[in-house]
């Protein structure tokens, strides 16, 4: 083995974020009262710098710390996505947090630590580092959900999320320990090799994979492990929901890739069946229950469940094509989710959360531009061309058809039609209903407005020229498997 010091360079983005997160905390401690924006711009600087560092390492491959962290195209691509989403979250939430007295260093540092956790999960090459990343991300999220301490709903959501999340971690850990027991190794690559001649009816392996899949499904929010998701999404301050809906999903997907596609590739027959069940249930429950929601945050939470179902379809396909499609799907979904929750953040103002669907009544007459962006977001979520959401669905469906699951693809497209209904309902309220008496006048945070515009227009532009992003994601998976 080469000198491990050389390979530290592969972990530079992670180290950078860790250092900067500590700096943000310290800066807030000393100057936080007077210089509120200092921490904010430092965080922006931190994530921008991390993006540059990740981009600089594009194309390199290797591992750091004796295989604890892996560096490949997949790591880089997913890292970039996570960092970009972290940036978006920051831009969206500044005005919102300020109005609610939450514009503090802890929030920023927790966001950075969460991003770091997600990145460690993405690059983890060992069960230990994977779990470490997972917990770092999860603990940051628990704290963020409950950060609005004065609100009963937020603390309740935080507690619920914490208990169920700890349970999920336990499940995952148990599955991991069984994998260790089976193979005598914690390294992903070694586990993969040790399992390569495992018989498909090795019961211990089946049990181990069931627990691992359950844990991953929990983190992703796939039905039937989605119970925490609507409550946590609704209870958390919207910028936190925004964060939860974006970067952690990519991280959880990476976890699935590392644990199942890399370590457990020989046991594909087992986890494939499990994911078929997860996909079917998630699409069904997510889409059908979302119809009944009147709260937009809750509706988008169920829409997350259904989207995770579509994502699972890509994992079901199992092939490199399938995983690449799933990566594309999850990146696109994260962009759509940030835009969706970002819309709520943008339209909220002091003492008013624009989170009921009825709050959007007659939006087009008061704010035609915002309404147009809402149109893009909703049609993209529904998967209607020419928005990018359509290509995400096409990508996973083609992988599914290639893998021979035509029936599942048919089920998926039918569920997409069910889904279209509740997205259309939001548009119906915004476009066809008259505005309420006493029109909204407040302008909204300009920074969030610009972010929302860029983010939503990206959904349209990427829909007209989807090739770069798609190629980017498809290349990412070339070295995996």
């Amino acid at each position, binding site marked *: 083995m080469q000198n491990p010091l050389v390979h530290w360079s592969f972990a530079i983005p992670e180290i950078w974020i860790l250092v900067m997160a500590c700096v943000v905390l310290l800066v807030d401690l000393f100057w936080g009262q007077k210089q509120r924006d200092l921490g904010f711009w430092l965080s922006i600087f931190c994530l921008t710098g991390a993006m540059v560092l990740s981009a600089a390492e594009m194309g390199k491959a290797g591992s750091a710390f004796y295989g604890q962290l892996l560096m490949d195209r997949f790591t880089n691509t997913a890292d970039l996505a996570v960092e970009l989403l972290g940036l978006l979250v920051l831009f969206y939430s500044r005005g919102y947090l300020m109005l609610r007295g939450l514009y503090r260093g802890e929030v920023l540092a927790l966001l950075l630590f969460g991003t770091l956790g997600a990145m460690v999960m993405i690059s983890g090459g060992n069960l230990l580092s994977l779990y470490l990343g997972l917990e770092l991300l999860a603990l940051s999220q628990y704290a963020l959900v409950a950060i609005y301490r004065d609100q009963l709903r937020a603390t309740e959501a935080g507690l619920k999320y914490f208990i169920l999340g700890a349970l999920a971690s336990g499940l995952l850990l148990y599955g991991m320990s069984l994998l260790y027991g089976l193979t005598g190794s914690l390294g992903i690559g070694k586990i993969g090799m040790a399992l390569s001649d495992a018989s498909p009816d090795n019961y211990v392996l089946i049990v181990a994979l069931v627990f691992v899949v359950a844990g991953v499904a929990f983190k992703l929010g796939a039905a039937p492990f989605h119970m925490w998701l609507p409550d946590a999404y609704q209870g958390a301050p919207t910028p936190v929901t925004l964060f939860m809906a974006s970067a952690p999903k990519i991280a959880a997907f990476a976890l699935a890739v590392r644990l199942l596609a890399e370590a457990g590739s020989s046991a594909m027959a087992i986890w494939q069946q499990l994911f078929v069940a997860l996909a079917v249930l998630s699409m069904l429950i997510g889409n059908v229950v979302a119809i009944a929601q009147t709260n937009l945050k809750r509706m988008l939470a169920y829409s997350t469940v259904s989207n995770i179902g579509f994502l699972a379809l890509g994992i079901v396909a199992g092939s490199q094509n399938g995983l690449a499609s799933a990566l594309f799907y999850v990146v696109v979904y994260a962009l759509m989710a940030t835009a969706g929750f970002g819309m709520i953040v943008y339209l909220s103002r002091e003492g008013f959360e624009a989170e009921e669907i009825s709050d959007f009544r007659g939006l087009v007459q008061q704010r*035609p531009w915002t309404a147009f962006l809402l149109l893009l977001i909703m049609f993209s979520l529904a998967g*209607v*061309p020419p928005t990018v959401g359509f290509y995400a669905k096409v*990508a996973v469906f083609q992988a599914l*058809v*290639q893998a021979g699951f035509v029936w599942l693809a048919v089920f998926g497209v039918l569920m997409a039609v069910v889904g279209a209904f509740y997205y259309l309902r939001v548009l119906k309220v915004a*476009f066809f209903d008259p505005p309420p008496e006493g029109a909204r006048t407040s302008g909204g945070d300009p920074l969030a407005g610009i972010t929302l515009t860029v983010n939503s227009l990206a959904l349209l532009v990427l829909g007209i020229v989807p*090739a770069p992003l798609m190629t980017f994601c*498809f290349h990412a998976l070339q070295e995996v498997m």
Partner: protein
Amino acid sequence: MVFPAGVLTDAIWAPILGGFLVLAVGDRNGRLARWLALAVSLLTFVLTIPLLTRFNTHTAAMQFVERIPWIPALHIHYHLGIDGISLWFILLTSFLTVLVVVASWTSIQKRVAQYLAAFLIMDGLMIGVFCALDAILFYVFWEAMLIPMFLIIGVWGGARRVYATIKFFLYTFLGSVLMLVALLYLYFQSGHSFDLLTYQETPLGLGPQIWIFLAFLMAFAVKIPMWPVHTWLPDAHVEAPTGGSVILAAVMLKMGAYGFLRLSLPITPDASHHLAWLMILLSLVAIVYIALVAIVQQDMKKLIAYSSIAHMGFVTLGLFVFTATAMEGSILQMLSHGFISAAMFLCVGVLYDRMHTRDIHAYGGVASVMPVFATLMMVFAMGNVGLPGTSGFVGEFMVVLGTYPEHPWAAILAATGLVTGAAYTLWLFKRVIFGAVFRPEVALLKDLNGREVLVLGSLAVLTLLMGVWPAPFLDIVHQSVHHLLGQAAVSKIPG
């Protein structure tokens, strides 16, 4: 004026970009938005004229082809091209958009820029459907079209517009998604290609062909619409504003039939033959049963909507008897219906703008106060009946003529549709136009203004022109139909 891209690209993107421009002008400058929209729609129409003048009628190959890679990861191309089948529909689309812009000059006051922009964007998307030769590109245009239509019906529609537009959207969306799965399946069967022309060469067993045919059928039958998936149409038509009804009836319905011509027949020829009985049966139900339903309608728009379904029955009948006469008749019938249904909806729009009701009983004796209108409407009514000398006659006659040697009974049943068609149209005409004026509101009606005469007059000229001299229309279509029938006659079952 120099445009960098190909003719087809210009024709697709000019109205879309123009639409966004109109949107940017905003509703406050209604006057400017109207003139700008008119300019854009005229420009688009002018851009599509070279397609006709430079079209080579001696080949069935695709012309004006543009092909560049679009999404390399999935081998998707930006692939455009037209043949004799698509050419007329492109012209019809761009021409009718001009008329729609002119016709809504005064009748739309609410959010006028958004209204016009929606039509312009839809113009480009519809042209895109008729040009696309890549399956995904086709699907993108096909679905994207729903977005402006959803807004047009939902924002500017009648009382039950929300119900109608959501029903319209979900119905057509449901139909299309299965087509997507079929297209993806074909992608792997054809060796990783989304090229529609490659699909046409791909060998397929009868079983897969039948599944693919049924998936296509779901998409196209909903769009046409064929009985029994037609129920969205009366709702959508009745609630849509006049312009929406015109585009819906004159162009969007044709897309289903175009889909049969471009996808179903050449890609799944064996299944098309195998299931031709089903298609003929459904067509006859539309012709006979829906025409009877039309007779009893009290709402003018609803009556015309049902009559559209019945007329589209002739189209689908002509497609699935596999004779050149019938197929060319189908295409002419589509064009003719494009003129006549558009004109009929515009006529209703003219009356509705003045009286704000579509109820047949609210009218009577309109001829005595609006003689010009009555004359023009008579032309269209005669066209709707299928009177010789109008375009309606040519198409329906050719379909029946082409059907007779293959399926005499189907031809005879279809011919009864001509009688029922006469019944509902003439009865409508009689109740609205003739008779004594018994309502004071009707007595105060003003006849057509110049703008309305221009719109309806141009359609009347086309209806009569095509009725007495259909040859130029047929010349363009001829080679492509011949080629298509050749494709449909050769089995694709391997081995």
